[in-house]
């Protein structure tokens, strides 16, 4: 968790070089869009739950490691004030081969979007509002059929 921007190239390079038996690194970057639900987005604020956020992300990475034969996973998530084209999140997964790295990277993002305690508030010309959760994100998570999933209320 950090407010500052990150250098995705440098982060991925350092991550990639950590082990010589790494044959694949799959990485995802999420960035702020200037449009959401048909409304122009001027800026957004990302709030999180300090303590639970770290615990939740560690739990998600542990589940990915238990499920796929991957070497390591890197998650960087920003909080605070962000503007269109700013990076929000970087997830990188290393492994011997691409298949498991791709799958684990997507799994981590799907769980991050539905379990990690972050909330977006968008500033638009019509005012500021909290972003609603998307049903499509819940569907994306459910397709993994993870038996260990905690029961949300």
């Amino acid at each position, binding site marked *: 968790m950090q407010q500052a921007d990150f250098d995705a190239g440098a982060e991925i390079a350092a991550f990639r070089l950590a082990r010589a038996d790494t044959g694949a690194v799959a990485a995802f970057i*999420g960035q702020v869009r200037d449009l959401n639900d048909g409304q122009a987005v001027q800026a957004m604020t*990302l*709030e*999180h*739950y300090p*303590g*639970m956020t770290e*615990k*939740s992300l560690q739990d998600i990475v542990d589940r990915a490691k238990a499920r796929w034969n991957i070497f390591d996973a890197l998650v960087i*998530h920003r909080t605070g004030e962000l503007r269109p084209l700013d990076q*929000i*999140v970087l997830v990188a997964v290393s492994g011997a081969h691409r298949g498991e790295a791709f799958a684990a990277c997507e799994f981590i*993002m799907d769980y*991050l*979007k*539905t*379990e*990690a*305690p*972050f*909330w*977006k*508030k968008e500033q638009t010309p019509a005012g500021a509002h*909290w*972003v*609603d*959760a*998307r049903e499509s994100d819940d569907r994306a998570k459910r397709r993994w059929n993870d038996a260990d999933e*905690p*029961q*949300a*209320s």
Partner: protein
Amino acid sequence: MSRAVQLLYFARLREALGVAQERVELPEEVADIAALMAWLAGRGEAWRQEFAGCRPLRAAVNQTLVANSAGIAAGDEIAFFPPVTGG
């Protein structure tokens, strides 16, 4: 016997209720998340709107997501927040 817990509210709830966190003494009959929500809903209109089941809500006990049937005990850190929207 004291049944004090720490309550935390995030995002839309924090703004609607005008409080980020508070320490409360639980009444004897409040033993799970559902009962706590019903108790909080009785605090006034803004509380009723958030806790009476009209709006989607998630709960965490000691920083782990839980169902409404989850039990609560003295010393717990209990958080309420809208469905998450990170990433």
